[in-house]
């Protein structure tokens, strides 16, 4: 993908706050990223780092209240989605941006046939009549590798296995040929062999259909295999972002480095314990005026407690939000 390509999705300075009784939770803090056509962006981070909330914020899928997308700009095809009307947003959802969620067991409506659920967006967004929509739904099920597609349209979700249901979810997300597919931990709830199948499927579909993909996961192995670029999130912020090779070969942020150290290695001598990152993820209550990772960081110094580091470039398309220079081992 040429560097100069116009991004299909451009997010700037996104801030999402949850209003709770115990005070505001700053779940997403000044997150910026862009996605080029046909590119696969991996989003990594532990639970509660704001990965899903960021993606849900883009399309207004968070329940409000308690959530409030407070600031930012989400440009998709020249329009700011945060300024769109509810109806305008609905025309984008499912039409231009497809979603695949984590748990295929609960993400499909149990009382409607799979066919009904695939046909719904086709009829709404594409204005297809019943017959054409059925034909297209059959085509989609074949596309995601479900055998005997025409007959299976009449089946209910409980008649499919977990992996098959996730394929159905992908078929629904791809129904209207979206420009962007957001996959929110699509393989987390599946067992390993099925995971591999779904990853292969997405790789193949991406080549055939050429849509851009945002793949949220906490599995670094998956990211290494499929992503073009990686965005590492921590405490509702982007702490590092860069091409996949550089992130794995030369991680800059102490969190990314710690995260990579936790992956057990097969070729090296066995360690007694799995490595972990000591400490707890931060509570996102107060507005962050300091680095969210400071409490668990090996390299934190006084500035990290006073100031929240901005993202700085450390290479071509590679940036990190840290005051510590991983090359010199000194504060910048």
């Amino acid at each position, binding site marked *: 993908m040429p560097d100069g390509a116009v991004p299909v999705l451009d997010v700037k300075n996104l801030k999402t706050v949850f209003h709770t009784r115990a005070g505001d939770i700053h779940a997403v803090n000044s997150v910026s990223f862009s996605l080029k056509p046909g590119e696969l962006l991996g989003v990594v981070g532990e639970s509660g780092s704001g990965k899903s909330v960021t993606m849900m914020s883009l399309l207004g899928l968070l329940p409000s209240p308690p959530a409030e997308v407070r600031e930012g700009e989400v440009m998709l095809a020249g329009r700011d989605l945060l300024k769109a009307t509810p109806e305008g947003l609905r025309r984008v959802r499912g039409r231009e941006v497809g979603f695949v969620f984590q748990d295929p067991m609960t993400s499909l409506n149990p009382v409607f046939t799979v066919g009904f659920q695939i046909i719904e*967006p086709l009829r*709404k967004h594409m204005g297809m009549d019943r017959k054409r929509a059925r034909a297209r739904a059959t085509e989609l099920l074949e596309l995601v590798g479900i055998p005997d597609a025409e007959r299976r349209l009449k089946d209910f979700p*409980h008649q499919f296995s977990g992996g098959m249901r996730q394929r159905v979810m992908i078929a629904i997300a791809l129904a209207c040929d979206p420009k962007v597919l957001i996959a929110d931990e699509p393989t987390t709830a599946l067992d390993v062999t099925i995971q591999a199948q779904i990853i292969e499927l997405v790789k193949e579909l991406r080549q055939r259909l050429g849509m851009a993909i945002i793949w949220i996961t906490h599995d670094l192995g998956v990211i290494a295999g499929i992503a073009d670029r990686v965005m590492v999130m921590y405490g509702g912020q982007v702490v590092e972002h860069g091409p996949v090779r550089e992130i794995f070969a030369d991680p800059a942020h102490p969190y990314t480095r710690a995260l990579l150290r936790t992956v057990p290695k097969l070729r090296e001598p066995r360690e007694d314990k799995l490595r972990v990152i000591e400490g707890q993820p931060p509570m996102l209550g107060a507005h962050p005026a300091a680095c969210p990772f400071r409490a668990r960081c090996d390299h934190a110094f006084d500035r990290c407690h006073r100031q929240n580091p901005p993202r700085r470039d450390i290479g071509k398309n590679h940036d990190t939000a840290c005051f510590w220079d991983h090359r010199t081992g000194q504060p910048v």
Partner: protein
Amino acid sequence: MLTYTLRRLAFAVPTVLIISLVVFLMLDMAPGDPTSSLPLTIPMEIREEIRAALGLGEPVLIRYVKWLQMMVINEPLHMIAGATGWDIAPDGPRILSWQTRSPVGDIIVQRIPQTLWVVGLGYVFGILIALPIGVISAYRQYSWFDQVGTFVSMVGFSVPTFFTGVVFILIFSVWLGWFPSMYDTTLSVTDWDSFVRQVSQIVMPVAVLALYNASQISRFMRASMLDNLNQDYVRTARAKGMREQTVVMVHVLRNSMIPVVTVIAIGIPTVFTGAIITEQIFRVNGLGDALIRAIYASDWPMVQTITFIFAILIVFFNLIADVLYGILDPRIRYD
């Protein structure tokens, strides 16, 4: 599904028979005597003859079998004959009420229309009010609409109908004089005026029952909607770009109706029995009223027969509820 239904129907028969036997034996053991309400001047020998004439001299099981035979064969045939005019009524004996000496079946046929109108309308209106309230309350949880709805249904649910009934009579009959406090069964609707009178006399009992039923069902509806509104599939529907109306009224409602329909179906027979009190307050001479009077008068054939009908209704609507559950929820297949 059909096999399942037939199997359940086959099981329902012994269930109902056992219920009727237990009720029969209990009534047989109960104190009270059909002659006790007769004047004290009647000597003991005559009383004994009266009892013998009522068939009380025979052993209890013989009497039960005779009653059962009349209940399941003679009485239904008489009812059908009465309704259609066909000449199929058998000549054999019928179950006679000890109070009136007329066949129990005839009394029940006279009583059923009032109960169906008053109780049935109370239930239908209750459902019609409850469903939208439940849906809106859940969708706008903690809004002022939900708060008011919750308060009203708490009151409606916790205050018994004999209390709301009396309060209604006090306010609307005594103070305002809008509606009559008594239900006049002899009124026949022939023209506009009599129709207006019929409506005005049925308003209060129906309102009392509707309030009670609506309170209960709207709580169920609200809880069921709330359970489903937070499900992942709702997020999926929204992510597909479906309109809020479609998300709520198609995706969520269809799932939420499953338990509510069951509750409504199971509730139908309990409404018949529960209406006993309301019928007493508004002097509606329906089935419940007949049952209460029969109990006071130790009229065991009447009590036995009405109880048997209630038992059939309960067993039958439980079956209906199970079948509906299977139809509404594709995950449940009984075969």
